[in-house]
């Protein structure tokens, strides 16, 4: 079995608006950058996967027909992944599977977003839920996260300021990330004083609305330009959660409130990667978290600290960039969250750390192993990956 490796990466600076590009142009620009980064000839790709979540934000149905044909690898298209914010990591996992199985030697994964061309994301993404029941109440990503945050605060006696510690950490990290959309640090008090959207979630708790793009070339070891440490995809896990979030918030079945579905995905990834104690065997983590509560639940579900302790540990300095196990040294989705590429960006940031090419955001890796996640829907798609050098 071939071990899939990251051969090349590229990401575009995340911004609210990228006015100089159409979707197709942005996709092409980032795709060719990643191939160039790998040193591979664009004609030598034999696979292409497009990360493309709901296209209502682009205002173009089936946008792959606009953006795909001119990309390297387009003679060997393997498919489009459509899983909201999990699309990028899911697409990367599938690309690795093709390489691993020997069905392709080099597969390009690419995604792009122009999020500000639609009047508001609530309208564009407002059709996510069951139209007969859940959509009859006021449900969106913010209210869904707020339901998790309320339960977490009650179960673990966590305060709003402790909850804000995630955003404070990530916004501080984002200052050092030249690709980040939000590069200003904030204090816990500023988070607590920002407008209340859905108690206890405030405006500064939320990821921004982002445009951006990212691409990764995956291939067998030795098929890139060389000169870099080999970054292997060491293991993956995936779990599809309940269709109704209320199905998983009762005693005995609480995965919506405690992250057990993500833990199930992590167990698969750890088993494949041979990780027995993630607290000591993981050097760094790039975790998808559009809201602070998602990062808290993720840290705990991934086994990086005991249940209910993540917020206080972050407030005490744990999981910061200079800690033993940094979480989101890039600033994470807190500082920029383009849906099609956010999962790819987690992999890119992990790879840059392992290559030692993360620049100002480079952290000292206790272990050459980085954890990546993506979560989408209302805590429904869960993707976990382990990258190792």
């Amino acid at each position: 079995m071939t071990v899939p490796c990251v051969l090349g990466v590229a990401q575009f600076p995340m911004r609210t608006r990228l006015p100089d590009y159409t979707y197709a142009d942005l996709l092409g620009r980032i795709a060719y950058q990643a191939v160039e980064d790998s040193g591979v000839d664009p004609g030598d790709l034999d696979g292409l996967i497009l990360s493309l979540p709901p296209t209502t934000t682009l205002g173009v149905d089936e946008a792959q027909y606009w953006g795909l044909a001119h990309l390297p690898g387009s003679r060997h298209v393997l498919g489009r992944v459509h899983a909201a914010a999990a699309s990028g990591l899911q697409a990367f996992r599938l690309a690795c599977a093709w390489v691993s199985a020997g069905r392709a030697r080099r597969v390009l994964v690419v995604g792009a977003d122009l999020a500000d061309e639609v009047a508001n994301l609530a309208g564009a993404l407002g059709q996510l839920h069951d139209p007969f029941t859940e959509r009859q109440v006021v449900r969106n990503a913010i209210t869904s996260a707020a339901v998790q945050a309320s339960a977490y605060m009650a179960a673990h006696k966590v305060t709003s300021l402790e909850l804000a510690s995630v955003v404070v950490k990530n916004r501080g990290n984002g200052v050092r990330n030249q690709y980040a959309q939000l590069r200003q640090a904030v204090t816990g008090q500023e988070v607590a004083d920002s407008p209340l959207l859905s108690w206890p979630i405030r405006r500064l708790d939320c990821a921004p609305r982002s445009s951006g793009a990212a691409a990764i070339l995956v291939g067998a070891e030795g098929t890139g330009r060389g000169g870099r440490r080999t970054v292997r995809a060491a293991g993956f896990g995936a779990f599809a959660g309940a269709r109704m979030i209320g199905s998983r918030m009762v005693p005995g079945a609480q995965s919506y409130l405690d992250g057990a579905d993500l833990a199930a995905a992590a167990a698969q990834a750890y088993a494949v990667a041979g990780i027995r104690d993630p607290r000591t065997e993981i050097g760094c983590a790039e975790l998808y978290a559009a809201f602070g509560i998602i990062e808290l639940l993720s840290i705990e579900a991934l086994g990086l600290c005991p249940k209910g302790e993540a917020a206080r540990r972050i407030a005490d300095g744990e999981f910061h960039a200079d800690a033993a196990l940094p979480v989101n040294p890039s600033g994470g989705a807190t500082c920029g969250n383009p849906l099609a590429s956010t999962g790819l960006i987690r992999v890119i940031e992990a790879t840059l750390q392992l290559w030692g090419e993360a620049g100002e955001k480079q952290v000292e890796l206790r272990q050459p192993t980085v954890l990546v996640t993506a979560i989408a829907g209302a805590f429904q798609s869960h993707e976990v990956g382990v990258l190792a050098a």
Partner: protein
Amino acid sequence: MNKTTAGHDAESGDFNFVEGEWEVHQRYVPSRALVEFFGGLKRKEILGSPVEGTGRIIVPPQDFCELSYRPTGPLVPVGPGGTIRSFTIVHSRFANGPPPPVTMVFVQFDGADTASPGYLQGTALQPGTELELIGARCRAVFVDAPQGDWRDFWFELETEV
């Protein structure tokens, strides 16, 4: 995209956008279990689907259980009392929602193994007491003339928090 219009910059006159709008009307067709469920609401009854072999009761009803992968059987009544499992107080205006602030709760009806969303009414929460809602007892209260719609009922606390 049914309508598009070319746009020009107000000052320079340069072409710089195309304005468009989606026009998609949808008529969602319910499953038989949902037809029965909404029929129950018209009689002021909450119905759930029991999973064959395990007894798990899913509200609102589904044809299959996502935990055991087994089919569900004829619907059974649950509630109207229940326990709040989580909540949020929504401060944003939603096109399909009541004026903010509105308290959205997830309630596990008595006899059910899932929690269902709805609005909590008739309670003025004091700041700092919000989290006391979790675990609080409540009950479904119906409008006088239910139409067979999720909005036929709301929740009220059995005792104030």
